[in-house]
């Protein structure tokens, strides 16, 4: 292993992994971990500051929002939505995009021309507007958000995997497999696919971070999941409104989002560096 690979296992990566694990566990065990009911409103407790400031109430670690709901508990429960969307949307986008990319890159010809044209069309949409439009059409809700992100972001996988599969299919080993009598689909799945898996895994990690952001943006414009279920973007939207009265309602979800996105991208970068043949 050389410098680049070892740098991939730096303290930064441990911090990223630690944060994601912590946030994930908190989200999974939210009912046990959260100090308060995330939906409980209490106007006597509105806009309480975080624990270390004057006027705070014990038990409300990060303070409360303008309806007196506990911020920490809402962040923990919001993590559930964030992680479900991150995993489900990224995997769905990955399956569609990687499959089409593999087909376009390996088979070339008409398949490539059609798929590439569709990718071009998709790239001509402003992604955030496309996402908002899709959720408005599909109706708000968890599955709509996941579907919308998958429909938009499959192109990220498709473009990269297409280029990689194209490169791989010109390699000698692919030719050897053909001479050895393997079918084209067999070669694609057994020979080309394993060689592009590292890129897929790296992209998957990056995409999870992107999905978390898109979900936050959708709930920020009030189009994510419709009920009172707390979401990070929803808390941010509240925080943006009460920014001059209660800055903490914006600061803490923002820190949570930034740490989560940075962690996912650190993982993606590290995986890319680890598997990149040029760096290796």
């Amino acid at each position: 292993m050389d410098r680049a690979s070892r740098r991939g296992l730096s303290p930064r990566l441990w911090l990223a992994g630690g944060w994601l694990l912590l946030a994930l566990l908190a989200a999974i065990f939210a009912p046990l971990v959260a100090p308060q009911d995330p939906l409980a409103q209490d106007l006597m407790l509105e806009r309480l500051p975080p624990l270390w400031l004057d006027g705070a109430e014990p038990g409300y670690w990060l303070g409360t929002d303008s309806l007196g709901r506990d911020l920490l508990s809402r962040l923990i429960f919001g993590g559930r939505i964030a992680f479900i969307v991150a995993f489900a949307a990224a995997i769905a986008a990955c399956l569609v995009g990687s499959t089409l990319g593999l087909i376009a890159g390996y088979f070339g010809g008409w398949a490539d021309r059609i798929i590439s044209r569709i990718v071009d069309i998709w790239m001509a949409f402003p992604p955030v507007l496309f996402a908002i439009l899709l959720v408005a059409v599909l109706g708000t809700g968890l599955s709509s958000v996941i579907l919308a992100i998958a429909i938009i972001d499959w192109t990220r996988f498709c473009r990269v995997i297409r280029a990689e599969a194209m490169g791989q299919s010109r390699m000698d080993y692919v030719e050897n497999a053909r001479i050895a009598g393997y079918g084209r689909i067999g070669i694609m799945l057994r020979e080309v696919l394993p060689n592009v898996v590292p890129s897929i895994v790296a992209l998957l990690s990056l995409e999870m971070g992107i999905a978390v952001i898109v979900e936050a943006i959708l709930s920020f414009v009030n189009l994510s999941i419709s009920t009172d279920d707390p979401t990070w973007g929803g808390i941010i939207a509240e925080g943006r409104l009460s920014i001059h009265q209660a800055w903490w309602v914006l600061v803490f979800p923002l820190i949570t989002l930034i740490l989560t996105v940075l962690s996912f991208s650190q993982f993606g970068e590290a995986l890319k560096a680890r598997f990149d043949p040029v760096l290796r």
Partner: protein
Amino acid sequence: MLLQRFLIRLLTMLITLFGVAVVVFVVIRVAPGDPIAMMLPPGATDDDIARLRALYGLDKTIVQQFFIWLSGVVRGDFGTSISLRQDVLGLVFNRLPATLELAIVALIMAVALGGTTAVLGARERGTAVEAGIDIASGAALSIPDFLWGLVLILLFGVLVPIFDISGRVSPQLDLPFVTQFYFFESLLRLRFDLTWDLLKHMLMPAVALALPLAAIISQLLKQSLKEVLDLDYVVLARVKGFSETQVILREALKNAALPTLTLVGVQFTFLIGGTVIVERLFSYEGLGNMAIDAVINRDLPLIQGIVLVFALLFVLINLVVDMMYALLNPRLRHG
């Protein structure tokens, strides 16, 4: 050669735009909500609904509607907004300049910041300065514009309130402008008091949009510069006695800039895509902000018009960059 390349690009551009039109048309017509029902007061008769549907052409089949709409678009008629009851093209042209100004100011900032840090990083290669630039650009790249916008709102809107966090211009000001390009026009009219007010509103959204792009430019340009700096002609310039900064600016930059240029084109379209949510965040009265309202109001003609204008902008930028690349790249120019 160049002309042929241009014509092929023009053709694929039209196919892409047609594809965008089809996709957006189909997507919004699968929508379950009835835009007509939202326009009428409760208690409207079925007759009223039918009349209004006919007025907006919604009583025909999707294929018919598409070709009626498309033939209008070709003639420059994008239909009438359902929620605002105004001509879609007029509404779009009214808002587009605000978005373009924001995007262009952000692009200039990104190129300036990315270019400066790239040159600095290349000059100080291997030192703590380069390492610092790498960390900063890594963070700028990983955090998307939406989050940068929020960070800036907190820092310079609340903590140190020096900039305005909502709107495009202070509402009490008297605006003498004849175009919608307020910022550029204020510069031309030498009304720097207005320029300053506009800038105070525009600066934070522009920085939020610029930071990720600046990081990409910085990383890629620094990489290309470092590669070029080892080549013979650069070494020769150094032997001639030019300082390292002179060597980079006079000799290395023009050859290292080409790969960055192509990338900046694609990334600029991402930046424009980012204006949608950043405008929302800062209540900036641009096209993106109007687009979100149009979606929320289920204003089909307006959504179609805005999406198509964005798509047109994107493919035009790609076309221009492609042509610039072909013109500047000696291998393609003479090939």
